[in-house]
């Protein structure tokens, strides 16, 4: 096994036993970046010098006996999270030259824990997209099949973990942007409860939906990162003033007494047969581990969540993106003869197509005469979706569903059809609408180009087998991250999907 393939907990054990230094581990990851990055394109910026400097500091901390579980472990940060003095582009021309004057809360926490940052991960512009093709700089390729997308918008974060171009990454999730790429790249991706992690320093997309979370190689690593980033921060007024449990206490390898519900509405028309088979096999495995399964749970409004989301998220986005005016920071088009004209030109030339589409949808939905029919209606439907989850969680501890209706699709396949692209988020949007936590955990592989071929069920692939990763989604009521991690961990430990690595 190569050093760059280590998980956080494996690397931390070796660091603690002094069998390995952070400097060696960081160099191994940087070498891997040099070898694989040209094909994967997971990063907007690689911060090699900074990483080596931070690795040296981490080694000093470890020698002094002052190490935490993440000390000296190389990580990637999605380029929507502000890193003081390190470019933070949001995948946009608009912020190509932006140097944040402050540190995001999560990067501050990670720095205190001994962060080694190897780079800023590529993403769909302003986190709007499901394939990372909307990055203004370059697309990211799926490490399992370079002709396919890694998902999005945290596609760079998912691809760099899958390709072992870092040990773990942070992403952000507004409608599936951590979980869908995690599923498509075969890694663990966790969207915590709305308010569980401070968003101070996260460039805002849709403020009632956005949340930061980890992308990792296994569930143990996910718990370790959550232990560092979760918790109250006064600088984010929506951040929950609640105590944070030790998430590693949830890593229990059995599911006795856990009640699982499988909502039928998530098995949508057009879902890939292999994905369906993988999810069903995962639920059966959880049943073997002691869980009780109810296959008849119903969340009747699920089918309306997508329309609800594509009204609410763009409406909030247009308000947030009004700050890009070419005056305070970022791209500025000064060819006009007045401030207003320059503002118009700055936005025309600074934003890409998907961002413009969402701004237009949001502005339309909030404009005079349409507010009641679209925005207010969507907010009422949001209440119905929340209530249905509340009712389901009276009877079930967790709900288990697909993450994405299909495995990774080809680059370019959905670019010309925005609505088709939006449909890739159909299973991951309702959780943001309700604010509840949800994880994607690897649960199988689907044959590339498949769709009709039937799965042979539980066929573990050796490293680099041909097939595209599939993830299973586990969700729970607000702030019940521990139960999600328990179910995810027990399932993971009983299977070997998370051990597979792509051939690169």
């Amino acid at each position, binding site marked *: 096994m190569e050093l760059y393939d280590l998980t956080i907990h494996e690397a931390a054990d070796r660091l603690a036993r002094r069998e390995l230094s952070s400097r060696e581990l960081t160099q191994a990851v940087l070498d891997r970046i040099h070898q694989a990055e040209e094909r994967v394109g997971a990063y907007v910026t690689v911060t090699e010098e900074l990483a080596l400097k931070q690795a040296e500091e981490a080694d000093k901390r470890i020698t002094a006996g002052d190490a935490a579980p993440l000390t000296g472990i190389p990580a990637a940060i999605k380029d929507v999270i502000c890193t003081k003095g390190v470019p933070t582009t949001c995948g946009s021309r608009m912020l190509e030259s932006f*140097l944040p004057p*402050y540190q995001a809360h999560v990067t501050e926490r990670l720095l205190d824990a001994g962060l080694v940052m190897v780079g800023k991960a590529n993403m769909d512009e302003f986190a709007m997209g499901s394939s990372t093709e909307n990055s203004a700089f370059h697309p990211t390729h799926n490490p399992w099949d370079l002709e396919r997308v890694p998902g999005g918008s945290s596609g760079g974060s998912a691809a760099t973990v899958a390709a072992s171009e870092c040990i773990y990454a942070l992403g952000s999730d507004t409608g599936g942007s951590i979980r869908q790429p995690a599923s498509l790249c075969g890694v663990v991706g966790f969207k915590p409860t*709305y308010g569980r992690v401070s968003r101070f320093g996260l460039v805002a997309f849709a403020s*009632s939906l956005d949340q930061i979370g980890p992308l990792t190689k296994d569930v143990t690593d996910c718990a370790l990162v959550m232990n560092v980033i979760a918790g109250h921060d006064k600088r984010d007024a929506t951040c*929950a003033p609640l105590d944070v449990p030790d998430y590693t206490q949830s890593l229990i390898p059995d599911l006795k007494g856990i009640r699982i519900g499988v909502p039928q509405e998530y098995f949508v028309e057009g879902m890939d047969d292999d994905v369906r088979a993988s999810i069903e096999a995962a639920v059966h495995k959880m049943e073997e581990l002691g869980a009780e399964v109810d296959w008849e749970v119903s969340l009747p409004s699920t089918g309306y969540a997508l329309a609800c989301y594509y009204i609410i998220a763009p409406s909030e986005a247009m308000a947030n993106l009004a700050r890009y005016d070419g005056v*305070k920071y970022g791209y500025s088009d000064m060819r006009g003869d007045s401030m207003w*004209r320059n503002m118009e030109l700055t936005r025309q030339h600074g934003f890409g197509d998907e961002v413009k589409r969402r701004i237009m*949808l949001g502005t339309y939905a909030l404009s005079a005469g349409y507010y009641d*029919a679209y925005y207010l209606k969507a907010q009422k439907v949001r*209440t119905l979706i929340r209530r249905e989850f509340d009712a389901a969680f009276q009877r079930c501890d967790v709900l288990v569903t697909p993450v994405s209706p299909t495995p990774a699709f080809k680059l370019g396949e959905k670019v010309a059809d925005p609505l088709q692209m939006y449909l890739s988020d159909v299973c991951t949007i309702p959780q943001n609408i309700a604010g509840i936590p949800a994880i994607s955990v690897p649960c199988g592989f689907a044959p590339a180009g498949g769709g009709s071929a039937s799965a042979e069920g539980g066929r573990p692939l050796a490293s680099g087998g041909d097939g595209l990763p599939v993830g299973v989604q586990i969700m729970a009521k607000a702030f019940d991250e521990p139960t999600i991690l328990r179910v995810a961990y027990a399932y993971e430990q009983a299977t070997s999907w998370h051990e597979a690595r792509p051939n690169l």
Partner: protein
Amino acid sequence: MAITREEVQHVAMLFRMSMSEEDIAKFQQQLSQIIDYFQVLQQIDTEGIPPTSQPFSLENVMRADEPRPSYPTEDILANAPLSEGGFFRVRAVLE
């Protein structure tokens, strides 16, 4: 189509964003398709259902109103396209 060419232009100008002729045509077609899709919501009865603006009801999070240092002016202006004498500089606002 659900949205006219003039509406596309009007909405873009509400946001203070100019748009090429080519984009107006493309967005008219794409936005119409998406707005048609939104009509699915009209099937649901939401009579008497209150709206949700954010998932949990944290309300009026206050802090003490105490003066504290802000970011240094030069750090903030370092990202500005144009600045002068400690201010952001823009082209003429009034004729």
